[in-house]
């Protein structure tokens, strides 16, 4: 058995990375040459006897850096950022999924051991309980009234007998 052949997508990815690297090197080379030419031009414009301080030589650097930082991102930039961060996001996604699975397991435990929790009544059951309570209270007061009616004549009779 030989080595496992490199698959086509991997080859394509390697090729793409190689070409991107070449393009970046060419871009850097061009930028360096341009900077050098600009500096030469600036030096040629100044009078030969004038001294140049290091701060003066770096005059335009801050503006250049600001311009680089303010440059709006292109689709390719975002694709490159995704390529760099893909492994991190993959790990993060795996961790998130594992946490969700654990959360669901705890929720099913809560459901399984429901005797550890006070049962909650639905709203309709609460309403029924309140209605029942009212009815019971009304019945009790009616019964008490009837008992009072029954007891009142007997008390009156006993009072008459005593007098």
């Amino acid at each position, binding site marked *: 058995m030989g080595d496992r052949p490199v698959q086509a997508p991997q080859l394509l990815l390697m090729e793409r990375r190689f070409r991107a690297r070449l393009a970046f090197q060419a871009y850097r080379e061009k930028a360096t040459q341009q900077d050098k030419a600009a500096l030469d031009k600036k030096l040629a414009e100044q009078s030969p006897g004038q001294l140049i301080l290091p701060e003066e030589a770096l005059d335009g650097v801050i503006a250049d850096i600001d311009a680089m930082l303010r440059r709006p991102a292109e689709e390719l930039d975002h694709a490159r950022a995704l390529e760099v961060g893909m492994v991190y996001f993959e790990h*993060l996604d795996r961790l998130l999924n594992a946490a969700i699975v654990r959360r669901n397991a705890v929720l099913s435990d809560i459901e399984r051991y429901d005797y*550890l*929790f006070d049962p909650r009544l639905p709203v309709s059951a609460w309403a029924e309980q309140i209605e029942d309570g009212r009815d019971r209270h009304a019945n009790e007061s009616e019964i008490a009234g009837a008992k009072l009616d029954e007891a009142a004549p007997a008390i009156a009779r006993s009072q008459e007998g005593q007098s």
Partner: protein
Amino acid sequence: MTDVQEQAENSTAAKLARLERLCGRFPVLSSENRQDYDELLISLLEHHTPRNFLGERLIKYLADEEWEIGRYKRHNCS
């Protein structure tokens, strides 16, 4: 604040302290807000109304997982 409210707050605080003592430190990083975690745990305790410590412990596990999920989601967006 009435006496009843004060008593309820004290009992909740005691419950949280006992859970932390017996089940381990709450999983709150120094960059996160401890009060937010407490609020999450109290909300879950109020919703599920555990009868005893075993129920409270299950709710603590649930709060831990919810907290972790929230953290990963925040990292994903940042």
